[in-house]
């Protein structure tokens, strides 16, 4: 597991190589039935509300924390290139754009998640594309509480 940060670019990159073929890793990311089985940290569960897996499609889910706190997530899929790449904009705050890249390495698969965080440009784009940024303040408060507990 490697996590790199480029603070200047507001970017966090997480990478890992999984001992599974790329088609299988793609399946785990693209099917709601699979994704709820592993998404989120240990002790969290996920309720999938909507997963319209195509460009422009809405992806909504609630993460239930072990302490009973619910975290509402809403994203819009930007790009889906089977089995190479999934890009989405997280629009429910904290705002970020994520690109998940799947690279076959023999029988293994390397997954790179690149998150580019909130900037004035992104905020504008999200506001323009999706209207008001839903629940942003509420979610940021939750993030703040969460960070305070860490």
């Amino acid at each position, binding site marked *: *597991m490697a996590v790199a940060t480029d*603070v200047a670019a507001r970017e966090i990159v997480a990478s890992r190589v999984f001992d599974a073929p790329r088609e299988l890793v793609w399946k785990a990311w693209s099917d709601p039935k699979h994704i709820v089985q592993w998404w989120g*940290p240990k002790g969290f569960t996920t309720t999938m509300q909507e997963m319209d897996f195509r460009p422009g499609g809405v992806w909504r889910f609630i993460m239930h924390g072990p302490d009973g706190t619910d975290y509402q997530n809403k994203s819009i899929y930007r790009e889906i290139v089977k089995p190479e790449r999934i890009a989405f904009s997280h629009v429910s705050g904290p705002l970020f754009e994520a690109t998940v890249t799947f690279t076959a390495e023999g029988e293994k698969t390397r997954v790179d998640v690149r998150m580019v965080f909130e900037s004035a440009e992104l905020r504008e784009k999200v506001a323009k594309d999706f209207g008001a940024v839903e629940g942003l303040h509420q979610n940021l408060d939750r993030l703040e509480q969460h960070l305070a507990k860490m």
Partner: protein
Amino acid sequence: MVNDRLTTTLAALADPTRRAILARLCTGETTVTELSKPFDMSLPAISKHLKVLEHAGLIARGREAQWRPCRLEASPLKEVAEWVEHYRRFWEDTFDRLDEYLTQLKSKERKHGRRHRRRRT
């Protein structure tokens, strides 16, 4: 609002001169004149950078008009570190679970595959 603060902090950190100023201030508080020495920049240019850093809460400046010594303020940097740590932990944990889940999926597919082959023969 944690993220608005974070955005301001990250914007302030985006400039290499400002990061160099912060690095210099790690060794202790100093005056603007002292700070400007390693940079090929005018005092007003340095002052502009200091204003950005001060606005972001990354530095504090003394009240004495003549000296106005600058010193590092650690709390916004701590916020940046927490932000990174939050996502580092999120992905580390999530990848652990994905790893376990893929192992399960693989063994299921293998069993499934064997059944198929048996049926065919």
